[in-house]
């Protein structure tokens, strides 16, 4: 019975005599993030999220099957998907699904005590879990984008033009930036609110929806506007496109653009502020269970 204690005594002698310092933040963040990614990957909700992320794949597949040679280029499809599916719908949903519980859930169920009682700064715990959530959200949507690419390219290699590749990489970047920003925001929601889902939904589909459609400077108050501002405008949609798709493409880009660098900067600032707020909230958070 005492063997274990004797051996650990011996092993611990060095650490017990030196002044205890916290683990370096970077190492802690990497460890927390690694285990958090594995935790999130084993959650059932990830399957539902994966299925929702198949939506763009289905759209591309439908165009490939039912509208071949109708003039809807891969570039146009990508721009429309990015503008009307990923940015207003999939990015906020993915960020909500992984961002809200990233920290709040552990505080709520009490399991955070196990990391709080390690020599790790709370901001490292926060950033590690947030980074994991951001990565999971980004990877999920990237997977969907890769499948879209495969379907588009199956039409023929002539699809792969320089412009298409540029747009494709840009879409990855937009998805990453959006997922990181929204996740940071929703993680802060999850840390602050006891029941964060409703405020998050109100923000993502109330505020964002409403404000991003108000012309002039008001629309700049939404994250959605700045993400959509980064999407390259495709060539004008042909007039004879079938009903819903034609309507979608012709009404999608009614906005007053701002310089792209401004949108990127605003998104980064919002992400940074949300992370700052979240770490501050966790610093002052108290365990109830």
């Amino acid at each position: 019975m005492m063997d274990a204690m004797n051996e650990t005594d011996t092993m611990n002698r060095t650490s017990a005599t030196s002044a205890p310092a916290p683990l370096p933040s970077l190492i802690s963040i990497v460890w927390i993030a690694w285990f958090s990614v594995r935790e999130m990957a084993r959650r059932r909700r990830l399957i539902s999220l994966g299925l929702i992320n198949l939506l763009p794949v289905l759209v591309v597949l439908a165009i490939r099957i039912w509208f071949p040679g109708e003039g809807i280029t891969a570039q146009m499809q990508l721009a429309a998907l990015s503008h009307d599916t990923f940015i207003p719908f999939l990015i906020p949903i993915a960020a909500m699904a992984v961002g809200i519980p990233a920290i709040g859930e552990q505080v709520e169920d009490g399991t955070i005590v196990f990391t709080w009682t390690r020599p790790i700064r709370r901001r490292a715990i926060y950033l590690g879990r947030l980074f994991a959530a951001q990565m999971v959200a980004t990877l999920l949507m990237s997977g969907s984008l890769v499948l879209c690419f495969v379907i588009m390219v199956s039409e023929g290699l002539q699809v792969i033009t320089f412009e298409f590749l540029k747009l494709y990489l840009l879409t990855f970047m937009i998805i990453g930036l959006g997922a990181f920003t929204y996740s940071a925001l929703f993680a802060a929601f999850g840390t602050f609110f006891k029941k964060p889902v409703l405020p998050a939904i109100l923000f993502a589909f109330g505020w964002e929806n409403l404000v991003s459609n108000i012309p002039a400077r008001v629309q700049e108050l939404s994250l959605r506007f700045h993400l959509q501002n980064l999407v390259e405008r495709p060539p004008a949609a042909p007039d004879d496109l079938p009903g819903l798709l034609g309507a979608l493409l012709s009404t999608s880009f009614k906005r007053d653009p701002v310089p792209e660098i401004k949108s990127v900067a605003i998104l980064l600032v919002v992400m940074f502020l949300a992370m700052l707020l979240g770490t501050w909230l966790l610093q002052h958070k108290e365990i109830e269970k």
Partner: protein
Amino acid sequence: MMGAGVGSTEARISADRVGKWFGEVIAVNNCTLSVGTGVVGLLGANGAGKSTLFKMLAGLIEPSHGSVRVFGRKLREDVGWYRRVGFCPESDALPGWMTGREFLSLMLRLMGYSKAEVNTRVDLWLDRFELTAAAGRRLDGYSKGMRQKIKLAQALAHDPEVIFLDEPLNGMDPVSRKQSIDLVRELGERGRTVLVSSHILPEVEEMTSQIILIDRGKVLAEGSVTEIRDKIPEHPTTVALASAECRRLAGFLIGQEHVVGVQVETLPEGERVIVRTDHAIGFYRSLPEWILKNNLTVDEILTLDDSLEAVFQYLTE
């Protein structure tokens, strides 16, 4: 209540007039205590404020007033000191998606150990708590007793000097319970500071005689059971003395220092002297001298109401 403190040597854990409110509810009220090495039991009924006090001491919640220190530091601010602290929460919540081995490994990794050290310690402690066979199973499939054990293992695997155990025996089977009690006692003997809470008095009694009694958020008493017992003047300690000469012994004891009442009780197996003392420690110290000097005979000494349960009952009346 101010006290000299419990445990021996200098205080490793201290709380100075610490209090905690949740809205209008006072969970802990003006508690002052200090704990040195050894095992100390934090005793109180459910809702007495034990867990809140534990969480404040372990740096998990901030006191509304007063201050708490472990190794003279505020753990919440000097997180590096968690290397020397182990905490076993009362809550049953565990990251159920992890296996027992993964959980222990992560906990040790986050203490800063190398992979090789982590593996050695994980094996040792899984074996120590007889969890080796279940090490590859997810924690959400563990029984209540197994969950308690893995929580204890994560609190002890880095060999901390100060250990907080909040209701550690909940849900354990009798064998594991006995092993855990032995382990806690051994930790105390090896110079660790173990603050262990429970609302089950016999459990604490088996682990230590050093206790802190808490009721409705207030520390009622701290020290050894006998010391605390002596501080309850309205309930003198009752001692039974078996002797071949009960009448002579009773006659002598009347009027002696620390003796407030004497009676001879007749039982089927014979007579015994029932002594009521207002200072049990002083009485026990004087008794051998009285016996020797006056040629008295005492065959058996039995304290009838200095059990933790009696003390707790008197103090919370």
